[in-house]
C-alpha cells in the first residue's frame, strides 16, 4: 500500500525553512557554551520570529519585532554581557546543578503541549485580510479606545522601568 506524502505548497516550504531556522537558533541560544554566541543566536531566533510574523501577514509587528527586539533589546543584552564579562571564563559547563531536572521538566512540558495540540481540531485556513493601511490605523484606534487603560499602563510601566533601571545601573 503506497503511503501518500502531501506535496507542500511554496508558502509551506518557506514556513518550514523559517521555522527550522528559528527553532535551531532558539535551541542554540540555550545550549551554546559561549554567552556571546548565545546572544547572536538570540538575534537569529528573533529575526526568524519576525519572518514568521510576515508569513502571518502582521507586517507592522514584524517591523516592531526587528525595531525593538533586535535593534534595542539584543543591543542591551550585548552591552550587559560586555559589562559583566570575564567571570564565566574557564568554567566547564554553562549549566547549573539543576540542569538535568530543568531539561526533564522542559521535555515533559513540551510533550504535554504536543499532546494537547493533537486533541484540538485547529483551523487549517486563515481568514482573508484587507489589503490597505486600515490594519495599522485600526491598531492606533484600538490603543486609544478599547485598550486605553492598558496603553496608559504601558506608558507608566515604561517610565517606571526607565527610572528604576537608571537608578540601578548608574555608577555611584
Amino acid at each position, binding site marked *: 500500500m503506497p503511503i501518500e506524502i502531501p506535496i507542500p505548497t511554496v508558502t509551506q516550504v518557506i514556513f518550514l525553512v523559517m521555522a527550522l531556522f528559528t527553532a535551531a537558533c532558539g535551541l542554540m541560544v540555550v545550549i551554546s557554551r559561549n554567552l556571546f554566541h548565545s546572544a547572536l543566536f538570540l538575534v537569529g531566533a528573533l529575526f526568524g*520570529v519576525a519572518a514568521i510574523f510576515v508569513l502571518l501577514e502582521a507586517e507592522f509587528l514584524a517591523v516592531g519585532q526587528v525595531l525593538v527586539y533586535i535593534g534595542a533589546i539584543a543591543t542591551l543584552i550585548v552591552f550587559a554581557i560586555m559589562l559583566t564579562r570575564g567571570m564565566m571564563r574557564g568554567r566547564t559547563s554553562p549549566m547549573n546543578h539543576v540542569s538535568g531536572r530543568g531539561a526533564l521538566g522542559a521535555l515533559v512540558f513540551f510533550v504535554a503541549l504536543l499532546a494537547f495540540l493533537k486533541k484540538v481540531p485547529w483551523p487549517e485556513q486563515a*481568514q482573508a485580510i484587507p489589503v490597505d493601511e486600515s490594519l495599522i490605523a485600526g491598531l492606533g484606534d484600538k490603543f486609544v479606545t478599547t485598550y486605553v487603560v492598558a496603553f496608559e499602563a504601558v506608558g507608566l510601566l515604561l517610565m517606571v522601568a526607565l527610572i528604576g533601571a537608571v537608578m540601578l545601573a548608574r555608577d555611584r
Partner: protein
Amino acid sequence: MVPLSWYLILAAFLFTCGLFGALARRNAIAVLMGIELMLNAANINLVAFWRYSGAVTDLAGQVFALFIIAVAAAEAAVGLALIIAVYRKRKTVNVEELDLLAG
C-alpha cells in the same frame, strides 16, 4: 496555506527552549535570554490565533503582542540593570552563587 497547528508546534518548541534556558543556565543573562524566547513564543501564538480567528479586523492578538513587546523591553531593561548592579557588588552573575537569601 500553512495550518495553524504548525505555528503552535513552533511556538511550543521555542517556549520549551526558553523554559530550559531559564531553568538550567548558570549565567543570569542567559536566564534572561531564555525568558525573551518564551515571550516570543507567546507572541507567535497570539498573532497566529489572531490570523486564524474569525475576527481579523478585531486586531486583539496584534494589540496583545505589541503590549508583550513593550513589557519585554521594560523587563529586559530592569532585569539587565539588576544584573549589572549585582555584578558590581558581588563580581559575579552566576545564579548559583547569588544565594544570600537561601535559607
